């Protein structure tokens, strides 16, 4: 698929829309953005020598999810017992540096930089989760759906108490 300005524009819109769904806790709508075979990963980042390019682990990840397990997470958050996010965090997903490349067939590779702000309770301090999304978006029935997300986090020790939110 050739990356036209229109396709690029569509994908920017879908990324912003996704951020709005996540920050607005419209998680059922967010799930509907994912393809049935979606893969959702967040590798552990490692501190290694500069000469090593493999600075993240593919063997162990912070998220190792598919559509089914993500749906379980969303279902859990809706129970009365999901204390980690009830009351919920205030989050803001900032998306920038978006790069769109062809990935074959109906798919495009979309890389973007993400900064997630998270604040809880009465505290004035907050967590920042910075990373790069390495996404594959697929056009099905005229709409863009997320088929794959690998979130490369910019911390070897995660600076947030849990990942009860999505990246």
């Amino acid at each position, binding site marked *: 698929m050739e990356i036209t300005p229109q396709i690029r524009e569509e994908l920017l819109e879908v990324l912003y829309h996704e951020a709005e769904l996540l920050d607005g806790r419209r998680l059922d709508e967010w799930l509907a953005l994912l393809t049935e075979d979606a893969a959702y990963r*967040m590798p552990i980042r490692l501190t290694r020598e500069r000469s090593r390019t493999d600075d993240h682990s593919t063997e*162990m990840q*912070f998220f190792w999810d598919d559509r089914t397990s993500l749906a379980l997470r969303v279902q859990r958050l809706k*129970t009365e*017992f999901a204390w*980690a996010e009830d009351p919920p965090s205030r989050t803001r997903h900032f998306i920038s540096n978006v790069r769109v490349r062809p990935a074959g067939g109906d798919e495009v590779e979309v890389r973007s930089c993400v900064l997630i702000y998270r604040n809880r309770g009465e505290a004035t301090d907050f967590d920042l989760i910075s990373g790069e999304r390495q996404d594959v978006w697929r056009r099905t029935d005229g709409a863009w759906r997320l088929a794959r997300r690998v979130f490369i986090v910019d911390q070897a020790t*995660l600076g947030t108490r849990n990942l009860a939110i999505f990246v």
Partner: protein
Amino acid sequence: MASLEITDQRGDRQEAADRLRAVRPDRGEVPAFIFADPDVYRLELERIFTRCWLFVAHESEIPSPGDYVTRSMGEHPVIVARDEDGAIRVLLNVCRHRGMRICRVDLGNTSHFRCPYHGFTYKNTGELIGVPFERELYGDALVKERLGLIRARVESYAGLVFATWDEQAEPLQQYLGPVTWYLDLLAGRAEMEAVGPPHRYEVATNWKLPAENFAADAYHTMHTHASIAEIGLTPTVTWAKDGYHVCAGNGHGVMIGAPTRRFIFAEDLIPEFERHLSPAQMAVLRQMAHMPGTVFPNFSFLISAVTLNGRFVSHTELMLWQPKGPDRIDACSWFLVEKRAPAWWKELSRQAFVVTFGPSGMLSQDDSENFTQIARNARGPVAGRLALNYEMGLGRTPMRDFPGPGQVYEGKYNEANARAFYARWLELMRDGDPRPDA
């Protein structure tokens, strides 16, 4: 100025030691201040984290000569390395010349470490082998034999590598005592391997809260983790109620969920389990529904089983609550799996680990919320003096016919292991106080 600081510190310590009188695990009372107090924490670093055997790695993380990982013991950075003869060394990651950190990465393979500051070079046994311009600058004066990296004592049990700074410490097996029987079930039932590096995330809590939870607290699962039953990962909300509460000596605690509706491990591995375990251990393994536990002070573990994507699977994990201050830890969690388990089992088990534990885990998420808020609440003088209640199961009689060692109580809901954890903690914190008549 220096002497004043020492005097002040001694005064603080004495005061902290005095306040420890309010810690009465024998009566089921633990005051909240021990989860937030900086003086208590400083005393813990000295009296607990320099004396106890501390978990540092699983042997499979460093299989070959030269392999190393960097870890912490208390707040001290260490290198855990396999030397050229295959022995595991635990070295203080601090150059003997100016105190610079010698190794600044998470893992790798090398036969020697070179300090970035002046280039002092050490073998992975800790021996100092190179000092730039040594002859010209020091002549024959430098006694390199005395300037090796500080070595911790290292011993392993069932592939679990522990180290201690205390030369006088009892051997590891003796320190572990009855808990070895249960560590066999955890990590010695087959040849096990750690897959990938550990999860590592910072939680604003005190290290004792998660340690106590895994040693003793099956009771919380019913409410904290009620969502897990609601979404069908476990059959009932009281899934962790039945079984055994095992006081495993020296502050160690284990809980065994039992009976199970079905065998929670890979059936194909039964012959290997039978080779590694005694018939009595095998009988417990067959009944096991899950098994959390803590080796004092800050090493926890878990075998847990869930139904994920329509398939029933268990996973095994190791956890370390690495202290970084009175109200801060690095939580680390490793996934362990039987080396000869079928490929589909390994994959599903790993996914079950990530989805239920670790920072994104649907169970550990809610735990981290509890641990954070308790530590925050323990700060003020009023809440700090509050005697938190640990009375559950006081005076209950242990079973006589359980096949494993330790004091074993029927039913997992009990707080005996928490009382034993704080009794051991208190004993170590008190040891070294000046006697009143001295």
